[in-house]
């Protein structure tokens, strides 16, 4: 099954890259853009046929490697 993991910085964790992107957007005239936060998306295929089992596997991957719980949150999407 295909999975997509969205990793974002926890609220309150300083995101200087998000701030720089916001500054650049404003420079381009997008003055209504605010609170920009940068994260990452990891796509992978898990060798499971059951969505719940796939989610459990990916959850374990997030805890052990893909996300750092000190500073990041993650959200798992099982696609098919």
């Amino acid at each position, binding site marked *: 099954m295909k999975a997509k993991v969205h990793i974002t910085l926890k609220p309150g964790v*300083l995101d*200087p*890259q998000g701030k*720089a992107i916001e500054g650049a957007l404003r420079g381009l005239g997008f003055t209504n853009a605010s609170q920009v936060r940068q994260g990452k998306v990891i796509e992978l295929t898990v060798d499971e046929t059951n969505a719940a089992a796939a989610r459990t596997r990916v959850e374990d991957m997030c805890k052990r*490697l893909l996300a*750092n719980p*000190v*500073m990041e949150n993650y959200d798992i999407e099982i696609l098919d």
Partner: protein
Amino acid sequence: MKTAVIVFPASNCDRDAAVALEQATGKKPVMVWHQETDLPDTDLIVLPGGFSYGDYLRSGAMAAHSPVMRAVVERAKAGAPVIGICNGFQILTEAGLLPGALLRNAGLDFVCRMTTLTVENSQSMFTSGFTKGQYVSFPVAHHDGNYFADDETLNRLEGEGRVAFRYVDNPNGSARNIAGILNDAGNVLGLMPHPERVISPLLGGVDGTLFFMGIVEAAGRKP
């Protein structure tokens, strides 16, 4: 005193660390490649600076799961002294041997310059060569050196005297100006500045020599 330096792909301060350790101990350290699963008998393990695995995923995240790190974690938990410098500090946090994380520098820039630090704890096996409140100068060279932990963790670190070094002029946005911390047992030190780069007047200073000599002396005093 026997020492070991762990070498990861894209470590780049491993040789500097080796020279500093040889200067202080009189013996060449054993260089241990990250694929090794066993560690030699050693009195001190150093995780050097660099950009292990190209900083993929997060700085230190891949290295923290290298085969050799299982042995390092085991030794550290058994009380062996371990120092992580710069990328080594990032690896120690990712491996769970030290609390917190190192975020992108608050100013976004890679910072490469001399920093002045205060020694906050001179009782540890790594800092007993200094006196509390003493100023030392070590250079920093990093992009992800902004120390972050929740308030509860920061309060605990300060309350337990586990902040080893603090920046006088914070170069990266680190919480409470923290430059280096100890684990709860006091046998693991992580710091972003590079003591191994100031071991000769030709290199701009000798405070690093004092740092490594202090560790050797502390090891000699150990019963």
